[in-house]
């Protein structure tokens, strides 16, 4: 129990680098970041402007790392950052920000706000201002291996269930395979069909794959709470096992932050390159499609449907065209949301927000943005590729009494597989 204000401030000090200073020096208070943020657009509360979330850290930079700021501080013209202030800011940094990154795309002076907010979380956490719910989830992530407390037993039960229902084998702890598949707790508990879908697809594609019973969890609580030391430990679990099993590629599931953590931040966290590649399941599926190894039936889903771009996969992950390529293969009436691709709007539940009970009213309010996007299209089916988005969207659609079905993309693809019999595939 050693969080202190000073440790939090030190975390800020350790972080403040040239890009951060450049960003702070460039902001002209134009307010465009707020216009890009769903929490602001749906509440019109100016405190929710993304740049405002950074005010304590910005002021620390000014008063400690700029000459003018130091002089002002000496003259008593620039107040210190206090505990009370950080406590107030907890709501801004954790409850009303999903780290979706839309603000970073919009800032005319080029500020990467989501980067700054993510790094600010570190100082907030080190000073003891991270929300209890998030701490709890991270603790479970570290100690039990799963943020939701999902154990190996639960996983095994789901695996067996899928194997029986679908008549596929789900190989465990195999060495030297093409792909090692990770799962998110959310999928294991709420959308276990994903596991079966993957199994069916890989069987048809003829790739070798496995799930590791030692490292199956993709979720990384350390990233969401903004503590690299913890994030590193969680990443290492996957790395150790993947390298020991000598797999070719580790696949991140339909999970947002998990993908971000492993694909884009893991190697910097552990300080070296992996001995394997990392891809998102959609990247793998699209590759298989392009290679002709994804035999699909010619029955297209004719329901008018749309795609929700999960922030960490699309805007912050670069997997933009692949879901569209896949959707066009299996759907005949795919309608893009007006703001789509990297400009799509967040579901409101990422970045740990869905974990925070106290943030629920904010999240539900912010969902009005997504609601409007869907209503504008007049569809009743929404496809997405992130289990957290899926869960949040389903819950919020319910709250707004909207009759929309939410489908996982991998599942949708699997349902359109032209499956050969097991006898044929052995030839």
């Amino acid at each position, binding site marked *: *129990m050693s969080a202190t204000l000073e*440790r939090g401030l030190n975390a800020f000090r*350790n972080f403040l680098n040239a890009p951060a200073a450049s960003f702070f020096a460039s902001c002209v208070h134009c307010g465009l970041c707020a216009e890009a943020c769903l929490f602001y657009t749906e509440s019109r509360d100016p405190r929710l402007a993304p740049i405002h979330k950074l005010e304590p850290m910005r002021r620390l930079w000014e008063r400690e*790392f700029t*000459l003018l700021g130091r002089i002002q501080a000496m003259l008593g013209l620039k107040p210190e950052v206090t505990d009370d202030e950080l406590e107030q800011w907890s709501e801004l940094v954790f409850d009303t920000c999903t780290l979706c990154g839309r603000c970073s795309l919009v800032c005319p002076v080029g500020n990467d706000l989501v980067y700054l907010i993510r790094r600010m979380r570190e100082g907030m956490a080190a000073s003891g201002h991270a929300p209890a719910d998030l*701490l709890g989830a991270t603790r479970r992530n570290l100690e039990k291996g799963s943020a939701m407390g999902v154990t190996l037993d639960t996983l095994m039960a789901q695996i067996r269930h899928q194997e029986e229902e679908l008549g596929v084998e789900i190989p465990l702890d195999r060495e030297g395979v093409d792909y090692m598949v990770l799962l998110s707790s959310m999928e294991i508990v709420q959308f276990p069909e994903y596991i079966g879908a993957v199994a069916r697809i890989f069987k048809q594609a003829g790739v070798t794959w496995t799930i590791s019973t030692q490292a199956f969890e993709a979720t990384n609580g350390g990233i969401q709470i903004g503590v690299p030391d913890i994030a590193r430990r969680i990443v290492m679990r996957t790395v150790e096992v993947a390298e020991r099993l000598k797999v070719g590629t580790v696949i991140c599931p339909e999970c947002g932050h998990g993908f971000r953590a492993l694909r884009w931040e893991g190697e910097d966290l552990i300080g070296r390159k992996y001995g394997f590649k990392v891809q998102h399941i959609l990247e793998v599926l699209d590759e298989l499609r392009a290679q002709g190894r994804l035999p699909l039936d010619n029955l297209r889903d004719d329901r008018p449907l749309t795609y929700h771009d999960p922030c960490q996969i699309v805007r912050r992950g670069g997997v933009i065209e692949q879901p569209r390529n896949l959707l066009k293969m299996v759907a005949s009436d795919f309608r893009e949301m007006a703001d789509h691709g990297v400009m799509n709007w967040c579901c409101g539940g990422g970045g740990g927000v869905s974990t925070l009970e106290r943030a629920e009213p904010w999240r539900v309010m912010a969902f009005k943005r997504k609601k409007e996007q869907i209503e504008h299209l007049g569809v009743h089916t929404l496809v997405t590729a992130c289990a957290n988005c899926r869960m949040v969207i389903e819950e919020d659609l319910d709250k707004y009494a909207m009759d929309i079905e939410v489908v996982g993309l991998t599942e949708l693809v699997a349902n359109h597989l032209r499956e050969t019999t097991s006898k044929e595939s052995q030839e």
Partner: protein
Amino acid sequence: MDTTGTLGELLLTRGVSRRAMLRYGAALAAALALPAGAGKALAKGLAGAKRPSVIWLSLQECTGCTEALTRAYAPTLEQLILESISLDYHHTLQAASGSAAEEARTAAMRENPNGYLVVVDGAVPLGGKGFSTIAGVDNRTLLEETVQGAAGVIAVGSCAAFGGLPMAHPNPTGAAPISAVVRGKPLINLPGCPPLPEVMVGVLAHFLAFGKWPELDSLHRPRSYYGETLHDRCYRRPFYDRGLFAESFDDEGARKGWCLFKLGCKGPVTYNACATMKWNGGVSFPIQSGHGCLGCSEPRFWDAGGFYRALSAPAPLPKRVIPIALAGGALLGVGVALSNRRRQDASRAATPVLQLDDLERSS
């Protein structure tokens, strides 16, 4: 000189008829921007004016103002009016010298209490008594003494009006305009290096006729001659407006008579009548001859950054400014950078690897 008799009587003896006087009055009234009926009043006033005694003091000057005023290509009414004054004391023009000259001055002062005019050209050096003396008396003392009984004081030329060349940087003599010394007397400034002769005459005529100066602006200049800038009356103004400039002397633009702004013309900020009245009896003026206006009737025009630098261009930079500024900035920046680095090193040293327990408070 005989100061009895009126100006009108004098002019009559020189063959100037009453009609000519009326015509002149009308023309002068126009030049002085007086209302319509003033022409007649001006003529009448001039006719009945007594020939005033004028004491001309030359201080730190180059005599250019006297030269301009006394050079005439043809005798004009203006010249006659000038000649009609009783110039009782003038360093360059008077015949007498030595104590006789000084005696003429003091006699004029004595005989015309509060009735003589003092004309001054040249600046007055306030930095020391030895810089400029006449008959052993320093300029300042001479000036103060002479204006005591004057009816009015005319500062002729930019040196007397604004300090002129003697006051230019570094001003070693402490030169100042005469207004720094002359207080409590009606003072009129006729700046210019030199001023237009017609200006002097018009002002004198007004004073003779009406007993006071014409309307003056905040710099004590007659508004009628100094109320407009050369720029606003310049015949080349259409070229300025259309952006057609001579880029160098004798280039195509120069030969076509385009605007001389880029060659340093200070017309936009120079108040004078050169563009309308012109010089040498209306023949030409600098811009017409292809040279930009120097701004010679404006205060401190010698220190305004260069005659051939455009009005918008800054004065030449001292060589050391840029390197010193860059060095200073770099030094400050590096100083802060080093201090920042130290601060971050200290905070990093104080930061342990974070465990989950480190994220909660003890209380």
